[in-house]
């Protein structure tokens, strides 16, 4: 005898799963946007900032890149309350993922900053551009083209990474999948459907990102 697949038992719960998927996307977009801001600022500091600020950014990046995201959020959720800071499930996950993304995106963007041609920056200096103008008009357009593919890759990784939010009581796609599994006990069916939703999410996201990159920054990609 073998296990009989019963997808019919799971389909009625599809709206719950899709609701969870929406929350997954929401967390990923917010955390990625926040991370992009932190990353850009920190990368600028690392390239042009005073020595003490470079050191501070170094400590931040080293800490967040070398510890697991799960442990970081665990710290925010369960350890901070002992010093009087009580973050809700959603806020703890969002803050943790943003700080984590910020650290990775700092590293990615710094590589982009350094890839700007020396001669272009010198030309901008000769033309009397201030440091901020150099970043805005010379470095960032350059960085956007070079870094668009690795940045969109990181967004996809983050979308899939939202699955750990369920550990902290956030009912995103994986959380809802576990709940539906607990109601139906149809594990194979539930997680096959869930995997399918994740595939659709990331395919749609990467296609949209590739199109956006092509028109906004003239990035040449193979549409993925």
């Amino acid at each position: 005898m073998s296990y009989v697949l019963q997808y019919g038992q799971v389909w009625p719960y599809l709206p719950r799963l899709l609701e969870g998927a929406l929350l997954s996307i929401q967390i990923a977009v917010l955390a990625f946007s926040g991370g992009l801001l932190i990353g850009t600022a920190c990368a600028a500091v690392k390239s042009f900032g005073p020595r003490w600020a470079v050191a501070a950014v170094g400590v931040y990046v080293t800490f967040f890149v070398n510890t697991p995201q799960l442990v970081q959020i665990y710290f925010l959720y369960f350890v901070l309350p002992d010093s009087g800071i009580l973050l809700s499930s959603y806020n703890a996950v969002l803050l943790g993922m943003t700080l984590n993304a910020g650290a990775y995106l700092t590293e990615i963007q710094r590589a982009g900053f350094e890839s700007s041609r020396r001669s272009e920056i010198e030309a901008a200096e000769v033309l009397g551009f201030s440091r901020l103008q150099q970043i805005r008009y010379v470095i960032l357009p350059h960085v956007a083209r070079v870094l668009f593919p690795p940045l969109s890759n990181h967004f996809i990784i983050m979308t899939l990474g939202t699955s750990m939010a369920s550990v902290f009581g956030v009912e995103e796609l994986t959380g809802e999948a576990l709940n539906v599994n607990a109601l139906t006990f149809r594990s194979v069916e539930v997680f096959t459907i869930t995997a399918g939703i994740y595939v659709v999410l990331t395919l749609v996201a990467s296609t949209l990102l590739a199109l956006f990159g092509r028109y906004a920054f003239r990035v040449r990609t193979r549409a993925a």
Partner: protein
Amino acid sequence: MLKKLALAGLVALTAFVATVAPAAARTLDDVISSGVIRVGVNPTLPPLGKFDEKNQIVGFDVDFATEIAKMLGVKLEVVQVGSPDRIPFVASGKIDVVMGAMTRNPERAKVIDFTVPAHTEVLGILTTEDKSFKDWKEMNSPDVTFVQVRGSTPVKFIEDNLPNAKVTLLDNYPDAVRALAQGRGTAMIDVMDFMQEHMDRHKSTKWKIVETPVDIYYCSLGVAKNSTGLKDWLNVAIFEMHRRGKTDELWKKWFGMDMIAPVKVTPYF
């Protein structure tokens, strides 16, 4: 390009589904001839199951399973399971028997088979002294947030009976009780027999157990639907455990008290 991508995705998904091989559960004969019975125990439910200083799983469930294995004349292999994954483990044949407060209910019985009850659980309310609730029926309000363990039975109970209350789901009992101690919720509905050890870890919290019992659950051993003969043999073995007073003896050893609502021994099952 898009078409190609969609196709690739579809192929990957189909391959994934196809590789999920239907796992076969072992029958009673398979277990006897292999000389080992694999029993799933949840180590986050002290004193049913917990890790000792040597990182071995010990507890009531382990002792109970040891007696069962002795009766069958095979060796015991304890496998760690958690609340969300214990039923998939047994349904897919990764383990022969699942323990860990397996409350029998019609939903679960569609997927796995249950033996006669091994013990009971009395469902109650864990909260803190600053809360004024006297009965669970007062708790159907949006001001109430329950902190519960994902995949455990009381989640469904709350959904059905207290639909207005909010629920935060965490992965295991230590996390859920810690969240409650940190003020992340109002209360937790779960089995009070198991709460003492968790409460002891948060000494500064003024805990309160609401006396009115919410419900009584009957907990059995769970086996796969196609594990021919295993359930029938276990029924006889468990009946003997109860009749010889072995169950009570083990319960007293681990819980330090008699079972709140003992299973009545009956020769008919």
